[in-house]
């Protein structure tokens, strides 16, 4: 396995290359520094919609040609929009990767955004949103996010608000695309079965002619300190009640991210950071499972955070027991939080969390797509060394730091408590 090659092209495009010769595959990722955090009120959901439009074709690769070409070669491709970034990937048999390179270079600048396509995609995205509105946990999560961020643009979901999905125009979309999809706002990562020198030459040939643009500004509206705990309820059709408790948590480049990851492992079981593969580890010996599920107060509990640029949320989601109220589960959660605030975990507990993380990292390296994902993912909120030093940083966490993280972040004032209350459950035929 060779080391990472990092190059910045003349137009500002950052390129990361890593040879991995374990399978005849290459995975290619192109990341843009744009996401829902860059969307002002009235334009929410525009980054995700632009991502959809990127599959609608260029003069060189019309929509119908594009997806068929990838599929014919046995490739896999997709795109994701997140709060902080948008990314496109193709994993292809090694000898077919040129198609992906040509396609991504082309649609960095030449997508058409045909008016008819924009209109038909509008209803597709509205349907996507309606699909998630069917899920009680989506409704609850959205309400909590909204309550947590009054000022910061993390307040809206990536999919956007229905009002904006109905009114965003073709020109809004195209302008957003032209402003953010410039090489100096992008990072390209390729991992797999290639020779670095040849790959770099081909990337330069295809991407270097694309002109740089003005560096797009990122929307900066920091969220002020919370003034108190927020409680809310969401009501909807269902038979099951849910409890979500979200604490304001630091961004991924904050040193406190690591003690919080250990804290998460202890309280709710380890979170899997891999996008592809890696699998989960169950959490049946975590403190919250013991306090809530073993005691019959709830039927499931999960915890987790996202690696974000700005401070976001560390969240517990609890499915209520059919015969117990969510308030009972909340009291038990509070007792467990108090316990870790009062008493640091044992050194063994911390060592266990680190072994769990090591296993999940190993599972993630089975897969070329996931390895390529990591090359540039960390660039979106830190840099590649964030990934390579992750296990060492985690291993350096002390029990006292875990306790301090619990004291600092898991404060009542720092949280939003949301309850999903079922009303009018039960359907008919």
């Amino acid at each position, binding site marked *: 396995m060779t080391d990472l090659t990092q190059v910045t092209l003349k137009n500002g495009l950052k390129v990361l290359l890593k040879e991995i010769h374990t*399978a005849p595959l290459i995975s290619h990722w192109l990341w843009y520094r744009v996401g829902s955090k860059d969307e002002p009120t009235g334009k929410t959901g525009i980054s995700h919609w632009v991502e959809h439009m990127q599959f609608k074709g260029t003069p060189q690769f019309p929509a119908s040609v594009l997806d068929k070409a*990838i599929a014919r070669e046995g490739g896999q491709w997709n795109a994701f929009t997140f709060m902080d970034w948008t990314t496109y990937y193709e994993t292809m048999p090694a000898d077919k990767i040129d198609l992906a390179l040509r396609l991504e270079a082309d649609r960095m600048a030449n997508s058409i955004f045909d008016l008819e396509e924009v209109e038909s995609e509008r209803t597709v995205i509205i349907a996507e949103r309606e699909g998630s509105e069917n899920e009680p946990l989506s409704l609850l999560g959205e309400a909590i996010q909204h309550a947590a961020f009054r000022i910061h643009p993390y307040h809206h979901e990536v999919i956007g608000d229905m009002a904006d999905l109905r009114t965003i125009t073709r020109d809004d979309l195209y302008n957003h695309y032209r402003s953010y999809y410039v090489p100096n706002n992008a990072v390209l990562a390729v991992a797999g079965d290639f020779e670095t020198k040849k790959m770099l030459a081909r990337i330069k040939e295809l991407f270097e002619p694309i002109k740089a643009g003005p560096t797009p500004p990122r929307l900066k509206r920091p969220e002020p300190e919370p003034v108190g705990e927020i409680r809310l309820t969401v009501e909807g059709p269902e038979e099951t009640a849910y409890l979500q408790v979200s604490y304001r948590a630091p961004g991924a480049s904050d040193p406190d991210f690591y003690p919080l990851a250990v804290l998460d492992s202890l309280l709710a079981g380890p979170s899997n950071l891999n996008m592809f593969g890696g699998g989960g580890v169950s959490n049946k010996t975590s403190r919250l499972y013991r306090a809530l599920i073993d005691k019959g107060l709830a039927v499931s509990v999960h915890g987790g955070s996202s690696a974000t640029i700005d401070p976001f949320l560390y969240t517990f989601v609890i499915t209520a027991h059919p015969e117990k109220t969510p308030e009972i589960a909340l009291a038990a959660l509070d007792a467990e939080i108090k316990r870790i605030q009062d008493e640091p975990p044992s050194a063994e507990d911390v060592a266990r969390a680190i072994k769990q993380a090591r296993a999940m990292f190993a599972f993630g390296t089975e897969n070329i797509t996931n390895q390529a994902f990591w090359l540039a993912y960390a660039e979106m909120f830190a840099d590649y060394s964030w990934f390579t030093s992750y296990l060492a940083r985690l291993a350096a966490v002390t029990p006292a730091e875990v306790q301090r993280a619990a004291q600092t972040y898991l404060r009542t004032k720092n949280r939003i408590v949301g309850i999903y209350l079922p009303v009018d459950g039960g359907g008919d035929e």
Partner: protein
Amino acid sequence: MSANHSLPGPDNITRVMLPNGITILTRSNFNSPSATLSGYLNAGSLFDSDEKLGLADFTTSALMRGTERHTFEQIYDSLESVGASLGFSAGTHTAGFSGRALVEDLPLLFELLAEALRTPTFPEDEIERLRSQLLTGLAIRAQDTGDMASMAFDKLIFAGHPYSRPDDGYPETVRAIRRKDMVDFRHRTFGPQGMTIAVVGAVEAGFVVEQVSRVLGDWQNTQQPLVPELPPVRALKKARRKNVRLPGKSQSDIMVGAVGPSRHAPEYMPASLGNSVLGQFGMMGRIGDVVREQSGLAYYAYSSLSAGAGPGTWEVSAGVNPANVEKAIELILAELKLFVEKGVTKEELQDSQDNFVGRLPLSMESNGGVTAWA
């Protein structure tokens, strides 16, 4: 370039059958210090009575809740402490298991697998805890538009056939299951005959065979029943439709389809390629093109072919706004008519054939991907 560039095949997969009937399939992959294990035995919901439907599912879910040597807590403590996982679940024909671990912890997986299969104790308190979880799962299912559409579809297509039943049962049947039922079910149906276990990862074949022999080689069950014979499926004489109303939902799920071939039928591969053209290839094939790309009615609209040991189904699924249900069904039916009457073009067939061959290396890129083919 280095080793392991070849696709899995008879020359790099070791297949061994133990004297008691267990088949072991294993392939080495030293690219990552991890290993994946999966397999099944013939103990699915086909053995369940109507009154206690969900018994196979409940029983397999309870296998790791305590064994003669270890408590629930000890079992999960040993797994979770090393970031490993192991789980069981029941389908219609089989009870399956899967797990993964760092290769240094693989022996632990084999030991727990054998314990869970051979000496589970089904502690009463654990069963009740699990029952609450299963019932909550069923309550969530009852409000899930996709799940309810799928259940209604199976009921219509497989009327009078065991495939019409959901493997996880109904609230009343899950409530009716007793500990004794689970003990009996395991005692009767679990055994080495017909059991298959696949292991892929940073291990030599010899080690895997030795480990499986060590923990399961002396397992016997002389009472193990034959796999139940399936009655034939009676094809529907005319189209049937069922609406399930779930108030307050913002999206409806549609399923339209028919009985499909079994995995062993000669028509399976042609049907599979046809399905690719109909609702998979590229952005969800012809169905995706009509329902999503041209009409903008759905975020997802695709077709799938579900085939196993018995008859399968071949259906189109789509999620649309409740106001667009009829319009979407019309479009889907028109597309199905065209597909049935005119078939596929030479070019479409070639595209899908290329895709099937070309995607093989990708579907095998992880250990789990390889074990899934076993």
